[in-house]
């Protein structure tokens, strides 16, 4: 393989990796603070894509304004808010009842929610996917990077995702808001004593993690088809990413997501049959050598 081919596969791996990073970041935030393994994360990513699609193609006629269409830029803002609110309701009325029990109950509940969402949407939408037609004109087309032709849209998705990921990391690790969040995770009683409403903070955090998934969903809509199963296809890999990075580690989730995207991209070029298994292979090795994950704390 020559250098151009390697660079090209690196770009492709990166464009896959940013989705892993965004999704595993949301999962890590939720797990870190709530100790909930959110199996509905893939379904909420899918829901984000559907909010964008429905907002563009369906909502106008439903409401009686056939000309109304929510464009891509609006979808980037609206979908995370809508899905984030859905997530907060889910936390407030369902998950909260389960905190006193073992992790497995939260996992089962969220898995159930994922199945319900997929089931409902596959009742109404084409299961092999529906094209998202509203990619802005300025992002259509390809750019010549010298070593390859690359879709402008993917370039945009990579840049935006990396900005969002590192902004989130900065907020949690480097600001006082983040300090409160991390303190709430360590010792909720003590934080409450400082006059902070911890249950509300938990709800908002869950909403934020879910909103990240929805944002990833909107970004994915123009690249992949919007399909009820798009999240289910991705979520298992994302969980492997979280495990490799270390459950609950913010930076671990971002760095591992990007790196594993690259590894997968190169595997697709070098030995395609292993493309889907390489991540799990790495997971096994990491768990054997560092059971807490690459960035995890051994005592956590």
């Amino acid at each position, binding site marked *: 393989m020559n250098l151009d081919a390697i660079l090209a596969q690196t770009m492709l791996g990166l464009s896959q990796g940013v989705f892993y990073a965004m999704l595993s970041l949301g999962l890590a935030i939720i797990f870190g603070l709530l100790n909930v393994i959110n199996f509905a994360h893939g379904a909420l990513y899918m829901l984000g894509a559907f909010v964008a699609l429905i907002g563009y193609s369906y909502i106008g006629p439903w409401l009686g304004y056939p000309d109304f269409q929510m464009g891509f830029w609006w979808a980037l803002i609206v979908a995370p808010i809508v899905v984030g609110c859905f997530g907060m309701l889910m936390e407030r009325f369902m998950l909260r009842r389960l905190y006193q029990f073992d992790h497995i109950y939260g996992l089962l509940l969220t898995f159930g929610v994922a199945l319900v969402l997929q089931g409902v949407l596959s009742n109404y939408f084409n299961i092999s996917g529906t*094209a998202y037609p509203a990619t802005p004109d300025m992002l259509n087309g390809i750019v010549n990077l010298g070593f390859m032709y690359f879709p402008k849209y993917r370039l945009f998705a990579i840049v935006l995702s990396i900005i969002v990921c590192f902004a989130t990391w900065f907020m949690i690790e480097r600001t006082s808001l983040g300090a409160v969040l991390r303190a709430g995770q360590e010792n909720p009683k003590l934080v409450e004593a400082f006059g902070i409403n911890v249950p509300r903070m938990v709800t908002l955090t869950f909403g934020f993690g879910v909103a990240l998934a929805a944002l990833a969903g909107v970004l994915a809509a123009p690249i992949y088809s919007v399909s009820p199963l798009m999240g289910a296809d991705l979520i298992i890999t994302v969980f492997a990413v979280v495990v490799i990075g270390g459950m609950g580690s913010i930076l671990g989730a971002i760095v591992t997501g990007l790196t594993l995207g690259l590894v997968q991209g190169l595997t697709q070029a070098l030995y395609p049959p292993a493309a*889907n298994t390489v991540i799990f292979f790495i997971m096994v090795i990491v768990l054997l050598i560092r059971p807490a994950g690459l960035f995890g704390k051994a005592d956590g």
Partner: protein
Amino acid sequence: MNRSLITAMCAAGVAAFGSTALAADGASNGSVKIGVLSDMSGVYKAIEGPGAVIAAKMAVEDFGGSVLGENIEIVSADHQNKADVASSIARRWIDRDKVDMLVGMDNSAVGLAVQGLASGKDTITMNTGAGSVELTESQCSKYGIHYVYDTYALPVGTATAMVENGGKSWFFITADYAFGHSLRDNTSRVVKEMGGEVMGSVEAPLSTTDFSSYLLQASSSGADVIGLANAGGDTVNSIKQANSFGIVQRGQKLAGMLVFLTDVKALGLDTAQGLQFTTAFYWDRNEESRKWSQRFFDQHGAMPTMVQAGVYSAVMHYLEAIKAVGSDEAAPVRKQLGEMALNDFFVQNGKIEANGLMSHDMYLAKVKTPDESKSDWDLLDIVSTIPADEAYIPISESACSLIKQ
């Protein structure tokens, strides 16, 4: 509240149980039962699924609801794309519910498992959904019929047309399982017979979401044509992503080897325009097919795929065969089906061979441009007809053991 809920659930359970028991009683004598076994919730739902049940019911209605003075019943179930689930449903249907014929069975693994099982119990299967040629070749069976398309027929029209139009060198993106390999091999055969050349192939795991890496390899091979030996969501994703990387704009052609009408709908005309593929049926082909498809559309909300139209045709011909021989015993009905010439809105010049293959005319279709399309489902042009004897494996070359006997 809890107690009343439990009571209600018990009552519902008893009611459900009671009604199935009754149904089973009635079936053992005095009715003809047809089972539609399909993927009702997964990747192939839109291709066959609930639409196939509607098509089967339409056939029963059009036939008059009864045959030889017996009621015709349709039962349906979801095989979940699992051969073991499908087998246990088929076993229950045949042994307990006295189902006389099974139709549907999209997914080759399901098709092969159920066909073998049903034939062993003297029950006819009419497979409308699966593609593998093995259904009528190495694993052919006494009562198994393969009705709509197979992996031999699909490349004939598409690959021939592409090579004739200058697509001499091919590179394949292959779904990495039996179906994809079989499709790639059959397509390669056609390409080589036409004087073309196969430059290579890359195997992508089933349900890959990002095909860009494979597309890049295909693109840098410099082949004239990138052949997509995959199906459903994989085909949709690979075409869509090929488009976003400007592969088609830079001069390479894409050939989808198995494309359903619903896939074209999923891609949208902007992306899919110009794509050529082989199909057994298109709703807008003639007056007869339009009329039937409109009735189907009124009930289903989408135009029929070739598989759904095939279900209607299969059920209809099965019922006609029962009527002709005056019995619903598998042996005489199967014999009668082999002797009938099949012609309706779906099938032209159809004949069910001794190995179970229903050989019939196929069509080369081309996706319209957005300007050419006048309505939501106005998606394809039929470019040419592929005669039955070119489309399918000639019976003289069949490897089926039933023929050599």
